[in-house]
Each structure stands twice: as structure tokens, then as C-alpha cells.
């Protein structure tokens, strides 16, 4: 499974998200490739799931790939609550 963590620049928030998502998936026993990308690249990058800060909703609304929006990027519980079910759902479909 390929997961893209997104932010505007690809350096700060997408990296923070990647680190947290990696940790959460490890703990959940899920195997996935998590890549941080900037907004410009996410449209051309193949991914099965996108994880983004909530404020990017207006930029990602048209995505054909499922997007999980996170309000609080330092809240591991929120990220786990939203990402794990989304990952399982995507995995279930493929």
C-alpha cells in the first residue's frame, strides 16, 4: 500500500505526518510505504491513500484517491483513529 502524506512544501508538516503514520502503522502491524510530498506532486504521484492537514481540504477536494484529514498533527490518537480504519478499508478493497 502506498500512502502519501501531504503538505504545501513537502518538508515540514508532511514529514511530521509521515513519522507519526509510520509509527502508528508499525504498531498496528500494517505494512505500507509512506512518502511525504508537496501539494504539487501529489496529483501525479500514485498513492492508495492520502493523509493531509485539515486545512488542505480546499486543495485536495477533487482527489480520486481517498483522503484522510487531520486537525491536530501532534495528536497521535486522532491520527491513529482516522488513518488505521482508512488503511484497512483501502486494503480490503484491493
Amino acid at each position, binding site marked *: 500500500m502506498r500512502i502519501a502524506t501531504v503538505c504545501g512544501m513537502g*518538508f515540514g*508538516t508532511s*514529514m*511530521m505526518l509521515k*513519522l507519526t503514520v509510520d509509527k502508528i502503522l508499525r504498531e498496528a502491524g500494517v505494512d505500507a510505504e509512506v512518502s511525504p510530498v508537496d*501539494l504539487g506532486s501529489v496529483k501525479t504521484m500514485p498513492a492508495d491513500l492520502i493523509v493531509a*492537514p485539515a486545512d488542505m481540504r480546499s*486543495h485536495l477536494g477533487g482527489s480520486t484517491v481517498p483522503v484522510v484529514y487531520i486537525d491536530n498533527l*501532534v*495528536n497521535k490518537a486522532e491520527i491513529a483513529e482516522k488513518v488505521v480504519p482508512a488503511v484497512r478499508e483501502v486494503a480490503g478493497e484491493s
Partner: protein
Amino acid sequence: MRDALLTTDVIRTDVVADDRTDAVRAAGDLLVTAGVCVPGYVQAMVDALDQLGPYCVIAPGVALPHATPDDGVLRTGMSLVTLREPVVFGHATNDPVRLVVALAPQDKQAHLAALQDLASRLGDPGAVDRLAAAPTPQAVLDLLAD
């Protein structure tokens, strides 16, 4: 690793900022003074806010403005300012901002440990309140070191 990036000379408490641009500049200017980036990088952070919106307000009360290495980073660095009065950045759920951490990454790696460290500190309940109320840069560092 975090300690190497955040030192008292890149931390300011009780900063007065009229709006989000002011707040980001305050944090950015510390980076310029410390030789971490060129002034253009600070403008790039402000531009990013205007063009992409306030997604950098990553948690309630906390903004993490940043741009890219090409915007003028000389070496990886971070700065932190606490605001005297909270400032609205325009984020749907995480406003207003009381803590601004400006990040200047020289690549995709060097700042990761510091970022992760900071993220886990900020995730502690009450952490943002305590940091925002810290009276001095040293007090901020002491709180982060806990």
C-alpha cells in the same frame, strides 16, 4: 538533536504581533540573525501562508511556518516565539496561535529528529499552555527538556 536546534538565542517570549504575517516574521527574523537563512526565506514563509493558506497551524495554538531549502536556507534551524496576544491565522480548527515555531530545513533529513521531538512534546496535554506562559527562553527550553 532538538537541543542542538533550539537554543536560547532563537527563542523569544511574549512577542507582540499584530497579525499572522508579523508573527511569522518575528520567528523568521530570529533565524536570519542566527545565520540559519537569508531574509528572502522569511518572505517565502509569509508568501506560503498567503498562497497555500494556514495549514501550518498544525495543532491548536501552534503554527509551524516553513518554506523549502531553495528559498534560502543556509543550514537547518528552528526558532520559537511565544506571542503576548494570540493571533488568528485563519485556520478552521486550530486558531488562535500562541506559539510560532519557524523551521528552515536544508534537506529532507536533518530536521526530522528535532521535528519529531517537538511534535511529541506538543502532544502532551497542557504543553502548549505551559510553553505559551513561559517567562523566558530558558524556561521554554526547560519545559521542552522535561
